[in-house]
């Protein structure tokens, strides 16, 4: 895929003063970017953070203040609004549901995708090329449009309203399989598999002791992206889950329906529901960035 190291290496060389020219943007000129560049980026970052800040501002005042125009400093009403949020939607239930669904989905996507990626990248079998192309092609299929029959199936199974209905359709993704195949092809030397095979390991042992450890860095990124995508997913959970047993985005929509007059409570809820992923971002944002730059696609 995309070769990042060339850029990085060149940058490092430039910093050391080895290269005659710094690796700088279009043109590879030596100069450091000026105020204009940083100003532009600052504006972009302001644009990406401001809506969240705004949400907190509105959520920290009460509605009587808001009707006169929102002040640009936070008020002291956030906890009171948060308490109203907890009263009007099953917030903790939604939070734990979101954690369960996202964690289980991420874990199973990683396991099944690595297993399939191991097979596609390292094992020889009839039809492997065609099957891999098929996997890639399915990424372009808008499966969301199959909601009606999927709902019928879930109703037949008695799964509507249960978390299974949300988890099961996502336990392995075409993107995950493709991603792990790409990674393992380079990261796992064939000799290593041959070596453990000669030592008497079965296929699944070879996968477990050699394939899985080699896949670890890519698996971590895949887990991260799957987690975020599942956490933020709305359409299908909204259709198949009951209001009494929602995930966070579904609960947020309920909150809006209940409190559309008092927006300070709705936005306090929006803040509360975003905090877990912001924490995740603080810890793993770096990995998200490099994951995207190595070719992650929209989940």
């Amino acid at each position, binding site marked *: 895929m995309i070769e990042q190291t060339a850029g990085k290496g060149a940058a490092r060389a430039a910093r050391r003063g080895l290269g005659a020219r710094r690796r700088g943007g279009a043109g590879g000129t030596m100069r*450091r970017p000026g105020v204009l560049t940083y100003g532009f980026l600052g504006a972009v970052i302001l644009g990406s953070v401001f809506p969240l800040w705004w949400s907190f501002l509105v959520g920290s005042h009460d509605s009587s203040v808001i009707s006169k125009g929102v002040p640009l400093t936070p008020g002291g009403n956030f906890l009171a609004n948060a308490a109203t949020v907890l009263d009007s939607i099953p917030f903790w239930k939604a939070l734990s549901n979101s954690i369960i669904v996202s964690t289980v989905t991420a874990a199973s996507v990683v396991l099944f995708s690595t297993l399939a990626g191991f097979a596609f990248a390292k094992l020889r079998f009839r039809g492997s090329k065609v099957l891999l192309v098929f996997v890639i092609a399915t990424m372009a299929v808008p499966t969301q449009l199959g909601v009606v029959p999927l709902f019928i199936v879930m109703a037949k199974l008695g799964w509507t309203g249960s978390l299974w209905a949300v988890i099961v359709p996502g336990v392995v993704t075409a993107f995950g399989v493709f991603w792990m195949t790409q990674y393992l092809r380079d990261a796992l030397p064939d000799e290593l598999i041959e070596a453990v095979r000669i030592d008497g390991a079965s296929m699944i042992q070879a996968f477990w002791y050699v394939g899985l*450890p080699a896949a670890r860095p890519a698996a971590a990124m895949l887990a991260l992206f799957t987690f975020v995508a599942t956490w*933020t997913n709305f359409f299908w959970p909204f259709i198949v889950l009951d209001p009494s047993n929602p995930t966070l985005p579904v609960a947020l929509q309920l909150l809006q329906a209940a409190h559309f007059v008092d927006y300070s409570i709705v936005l306090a809820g*929006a803040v509360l529901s975003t905090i877990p992923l912001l924490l995740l971002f603080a810890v793993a944002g770096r990995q998200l*960035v490099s994951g995207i730059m190595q070719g992650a696609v929209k989940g």
Partner: protein
Amino acid sequence: MAVTDRVHTPPPTRQRAPRDKSVKRLAFSQKVSKWDVKLSPYLYISPFFLLFAVTGLFPLLYTAWVSLHSWNLIGGQGEFTGLENYEFVLAQPFFWNAVGNTFSIFLLSSVPQVVIAIAIAAVLDANLRARTFWRMGVLVPFVVAPVAVGLIFNNLFADQAGLVNEMLVGVGLDPVRWHSDSLASHAAIATMVNFRWTGYNALIFLAAMQAIPRDVYEAATIDGAGRLRQFFSVTVPMLRPTIIFVVITATIGGLQIFDEARVFDQAGLGGADRQWQTLTMYIWELGWGQRNFGRASAVAWLLFLIIVIIAMANFLITRRIANQGGRQ
């Protein structure tokens, strides 16, 4: 490779079998091992294919079947009605309204998004200080759920005393009726989509820009091309595959837009006159609002065809544009 030293060799299993009874067992274990080698790959890839068959392909095909029947959410399958659902749906003004809204929102989101993302990527590609900070900063909106984005921007774009309107009034313009004027509501919803995805796509473009060999730029510099000229004559044409990729994923996702538009008001049907009802919202209204699965499936199948056609057209057009860029 760092990987090698983490490998745990499994305990050797069948090396010390006593000689006398080992011949038969060896033959047996060889047979097992042979099947292991032959079947394991298929076993390992089967979860994906099974799941895709059951939750992807089958529902999609079955949608066509449901669309040919009268079919109720509660009552289930009714009689075969042929193309009646399609005739009904295609005669509905709300259907064509939803088609128009979907395309309008899609164009307002995808085109500016790609252009701005490339611009941001070009700036991020400069020799920045604290580059990780800037890259992460651009990505913050990605972790905000579309529903939360929708709720926040719904407030920013409030018709009365919303921040955007206050600012418009502040600079001497008229306030915009974001929640009643059709095109204005599309712009507001497109803004939400752009908010969430522009930074993400900027990072994809950035990665592609870094993969462009630097000597191409050196050659351009020697030929006397300025920075702007280099950007349009070297960078943009070299980004062609990435642009195609981003545009196609944006198409597949963008034509199915639901979340942001759904929460743009509390009723969730796309406004009093369905000013911002998208096709996916229309599917929801028919299927779960009116409980008519037959008609909902007809719309789903039509949307599927639209997406396939647009994705292919997109592919051809982007390719042509990018090609022309390369020839300049």
